């Protein structure tokens, strides 16, 4: 399957990276990692790109890593439609001190606007 993973550097997105790479190796998915400018993340896009490249290298998976600039949600949705991805994967949200799951703004936008199936990794 042709899978587009969007990560912005939040902890849940890095968890989604690990799990999606693992899954792609098992299932033979054709994976593209899109690094997004997430204002809610403390990590820079360059740091996230380096991290994604090393995770892919360790797993021995050949996947594109791209940096998407501009509005992260709409750029990701646009890319998914334009290049015929079958699934978009995102982190499943952070937990509040209480333990409530809080979806990020990018996930909310993509869930409502993506033309294809969206998976949230939990």
């Amino acid at each position, binding site marked *: 399957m042709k899978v587009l993973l969007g990560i912005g550097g939040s902890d849940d997105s890095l968890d989604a990276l690990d799990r999606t790479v693992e899954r792609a190796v098992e299932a033979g998915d054709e994976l593209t990692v899109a690094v997004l400018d997430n204002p809610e993340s403390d990590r820079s896009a360059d740091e996230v790109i380096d991290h994604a490249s090393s995770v892919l290298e360790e797993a021995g998976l050949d996947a594109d890593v791209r940096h998407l600039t501009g509005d992260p949600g709409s750029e990701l949705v646009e890319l998914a439609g334009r290049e015929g991805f079958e699934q978009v994967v995102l982190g499943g949200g952070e*937990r*509040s*001190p*209480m*333990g*409530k*799951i*809080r*979806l990020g*703004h990018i996930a*909310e936008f993509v869930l409502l606007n993506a033309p294809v199936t969206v998976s949230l990794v939990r």
Partner: protein
Amino acid sequence: MTNDTDAPGPFPTPPHAFEDADGREITVRSLASTDADGIESLVAMYDDFDPSMRAQGIPPTGEARVRSWLDTLVGGDAYNVVAWHGDDAVGHATLVPDGDDAYELAIFVHQDSQGCGIGTRLIRTLLGYGAANDVGHVWLTVERWNHAAIALYEKVGFETMSAESFEIEMEMDLSTARVQTDNTG
């Protein structure tokens, strides 16, 4: 504490006893981390909690996850109050420190005890308990379609801060709240 009429409250402090709309004697008490029996009763309440009444992933499902979740709530620096009907826990409300000098609030009332005014008494007693312990900024998130919960939060004095996402964020400044000295109300 001031007499400013715009300030939130007055809120009761635990223990707070009242008769609910069904005529049952309910008492709201604080829950100490050392109260093993109280925690067991609370585990039983959550274990029997209607899964459709969960919100934003809590309470978790399954006894083991409920226990681990309650451990973090009751074992830490959170303020917890429980509504009791006899020996049964029928509601729980908590203020959890967010590490940034503020507290996140949540409240749960067992499905068999909803609609008889327990939630309002429970949250007001939690706010009184917090105010008496110098809790200042309190916030919460609520799913935007959860109108009953939003109405409850507004009634006790929460104001909406952000409503642009799936969740509404609400907050209250407890530092000026009035606390009832007479706890019969």
